[in-house]
């Protein structure tokens, strides 16, 4: 999830406030596919990724493209607008009740010595690693990926060598959205959700991205681990409702010690 946000911010310098809501859409899509067609979310995440890719490209082409040169506050307003629209359509379509996707995997646990390992979480975690690796391979070892990195590094430079920068941006936004779509489907058996969940997911993603360092994939991944560990510890030692206290304390600590984030480079 945070990986997608990082990609979009890293390439276009646009903060995607609709991120969490896109993820909720990925979750509902997995929900529909599971209840109507009986497809397990650990299979349907591919479909969710593809659908969100299309949504991402459409949002980029139709909206974000027009405001890339606009001041930051305009971009924020637009993305908040997109977030509201997505959240409220989800509310209209699925109602306010919390939903949860059933997967046979979610009922399994493994006993490893003194520990119970939740198989669903393990599979989600494994697939997250695989997806992050696949994305890095794409960005660093394919020509399209290299072009995306080039356009992120210097858009004007990319234009003078004949890049259709708008198209590169659409691909990047689409891939970023596909990451959240997949993430949404993958956590849907673990995390109950409802339309307003999007906002808290967005906040968590920003937290992760800022901790990891804006624009760094590895940072987004490690940041995600740190935040979830911090929140679990918070939930165990304090009360579950106070778990965010831990992750936000972590955020403040990191901002004080390393303002650019763990893996971020200071803008020069």
């Amino acid at each position, binding site marked *: 999830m945070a990986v997608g946000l990082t990609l979009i911010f890293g390439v276009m310098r646009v903060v995607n406030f609709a991120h969490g809501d896109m993820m909720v859409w990925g979750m509902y899509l997995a929900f529909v596919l599971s209840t109507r067609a009986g497809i397990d979310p650990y299979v349907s995440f591919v479909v969710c990724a593809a659908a969100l890719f299309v949504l991402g490209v459409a949002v980029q082409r139709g909206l974000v493209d027009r405001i890339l040169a606009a001041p930051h506050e305009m971009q924020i307003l637009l993305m908040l607008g997109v977030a509201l629209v997505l959240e409220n359509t989800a509310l209209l379509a699925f109602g306010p009740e919390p939903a949860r996707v059933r997967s046979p995997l979610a009922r399994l646990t493994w006993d490893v010595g003194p520990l119970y390992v939740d198989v669903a979480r393990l599979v989600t975690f494994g697939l997250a690693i695989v997806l992050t690796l696949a994305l890095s391979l794409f960005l660093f070892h394919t020509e399209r990926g290299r072009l995306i990195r080039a356009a992120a*590094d210097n858009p004007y430079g990319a234009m*003078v060598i*004949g890049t259709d920068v708008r198209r590169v941006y659409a691909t990047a936004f689409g891939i970023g959205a596909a990451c959240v779509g997949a993430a949404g489907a993958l956590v849907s058996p673990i995390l109950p959700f409802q339309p307003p969940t999007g906002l808290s997911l967005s906040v968590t993603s920003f937290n992760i991205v800022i901790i990891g360092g804006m624009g760094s994939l590895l940072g987004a991944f490690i940041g995600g681990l740190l935040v979830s560990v911090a929140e679990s510890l918070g939930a165990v030692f304090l009360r579950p409702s106070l778990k965010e206290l831990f992750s936000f304390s972590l955020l403040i600590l990191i901002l004080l010690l390393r303002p650019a984030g763990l893996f971020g480079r200071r803008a020069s």
Partner: protein
Amino acid sequence: MLELRDVDAAYGDIRVLSGVTLAVGTGEIVALLGPNGSGKTTLLTSIAGLLRPRGGTIRWEGEDLATVPAHLVVERGLALVPEGRRLFGGMTVEDNLELGAFAPRARRHRAEGFARVYALFPDLRERRRQLVRSLSGGQQQMVAVGRALMTNPRLLMLDEPSLGIAPRLVVSIFAALAEINRAGVGVFLVEQNVQAALTLAHRAYLLESGRIAGQGRAADLLHDPHVRRAYLGPLAVRT
């Protein structure tokens, strides 16, 4: 052959170019000289399709470029080495060069492109695995010229390639431009280093406040009293 006729360009209400008419013949080296803010960069970005002129026509090999999007101008054989180089600093020299040749036409000539760039700038071959950000200004300018050459251009446009670069490297970059031109590639050179530009070029235009204020053979302009006073003389304001 590149032909501009009565080109006007503006940013919002600020008019920058007024009725610019000029031509660069096939295989020719033409310099465009002018003081700061006279509109040189604006002229190059208009040709490259990055800024749409308000009036006039820009023709390249007979075709009007008015409706050609910027990313296809490169495919037509026009390459720009932009002001400030605009390289991909976080990537290696080799990646920067390779990206120059990603468009379909250039891709077919990628291997020759690498050979040509490394022959012109042997320094770059040695540093091909280094990040561009870690190179000196002069070496970065070589990468910028190399990246543009990788697009396999028939006309190479350069925006102040000598700016802020050690004199020794300016000499080798200008020598490379002469070499590139001997292979039949036209060169359109925007410069404030008037001495160096007029020594290399066949012809030159003078741009002042967005208008063509003079033109002629480079050798003649080098001895022209007005040019010497305005661009080379001891009283000239240079930055």
